[in-house]
């Protein structure tokens, strides 16, 4: 998963993520951590964050 420059750091993705894999850091940056399914098991991404993002800032690699 990748977050691009469209991100507004609104935290919508962090809420809908079933794995708590997305965190809005105090630096104002959104970070996808290793709990993301794709990272751990190399499974197909769930993609919920991609669908929820209001500006299309998250992409599956």
């Amino acid at each position, binding site marked *: 998963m990748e977050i691009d420059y469209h991100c*507004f750091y609104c935290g919508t993705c962090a*809420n*809908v993520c*079933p794995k*708590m894999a997305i965190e809005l850091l*105090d630096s104002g940056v959104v970070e996808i951590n290793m709990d993301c399914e794709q990272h751990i098991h190399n499974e197909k991404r769930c993609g*919920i964050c991609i669908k929820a993002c*209001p500006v*299309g800032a998250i992409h599956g690699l």
Partner: protein
Amino acid sequence: MDYDVVVVGAGPGGSMTARTLAQEGASVLMVEKRPEIGMPVRCGEGTGVAGLKELGITPHPKFIAQEIYGDYLYSPDGTKVDMRTEEPNGYCLERRMFDKHLGILAAKAGAVVRTRTTATGLITENGTVKGVKLRHFDDEYDVKCNVVVGADGIEGRVGRWAGISNRTKLGEMTSNVQFELVGIEMEEPNVLEFYLGGKYAPGGYVWIFPKGPDVANVGLGIRKTKETALVYLKRFIAEHENLARGSVASIVVGGVPVQGPLEESVGNGVLLVGDSARHVDPLTGGGIYNAMHCGTLAAGVIGEALAAGNFSKEFLQKYHELWWKEVGEGLMRSLRVKEIIEKLSDDDLNKIAKFMQGMKFGEIDIKEASSIVTQFPPEFAEFVQSLL
């Protein structure tokens, strides 16, 4: 204990909790991960006159952008329903100033406020929350307390750390984008405008909230779409000449959970307030008053817990029951209305709008409700009944 209570998040819910507790004599730490309370704004900025009055917040020009006298509702075919009021019934706020004002009130009441301070985890002992792990720049430290209040917004983690799931289902999260447009024309600069229908905002609506004679927040929320909210908003603005000529002074982006309130909002030594407890109206997406009111309720119950020395889930459950009674039942009613509206087609909305055109909403008496329902075609009776 370092503090009686740590409040995580300095939005309206967190600040009201911290302020009320501090006024009652509790030692309170309120932390905010952002460097400045109120920034960035993630809100349409509309709220009600009655709510602020009830909460004892005196309106001040520094955070009131515009008094509002009701609204116009537009159905998909452009049918306008006039829902204006004689007296102001709402405000369009400057949230960046409003939130900071509330944070300052909390600090003046005696709460310790620390910005750019992030909660990174909870301290638990035997299944009870006993404090919070904090980070301020490079300093990481623990703060012990009797109760942690999670007022950390939709991205909040306090609830989930404590085992309270406040994750929203994807289909129940609206994606929202708003432009603050300057140099636009509005029909009336003190009346809200709402646009319904699948063309402009499937699963949500478009709003125009005036902030001055030629300035307004123009935004929308959508659900279950392939295109992003940003695409929908740009399209809506392009199709409205009076808006398209405006300059964009700010862009606000965010998600609003419209799933209805949480069934569980407390744990041992912890409770949730505001968006993190989904104190958001599922129909309107509004939540400022709810968060603030629930913050005062939380403070009241925590005050009792401090006096009793009992911070168990069972004791704090009184807060959950209180807010469900005072706020939650209204939110569930809105959820039911939202679910009924979801089933309506654009044609249905047009028909309903035409029936509503002649009504003067500010003058409807509850005693007349049944007669109003009978004026509508039978297929819309459920919808109208739910509104009344």
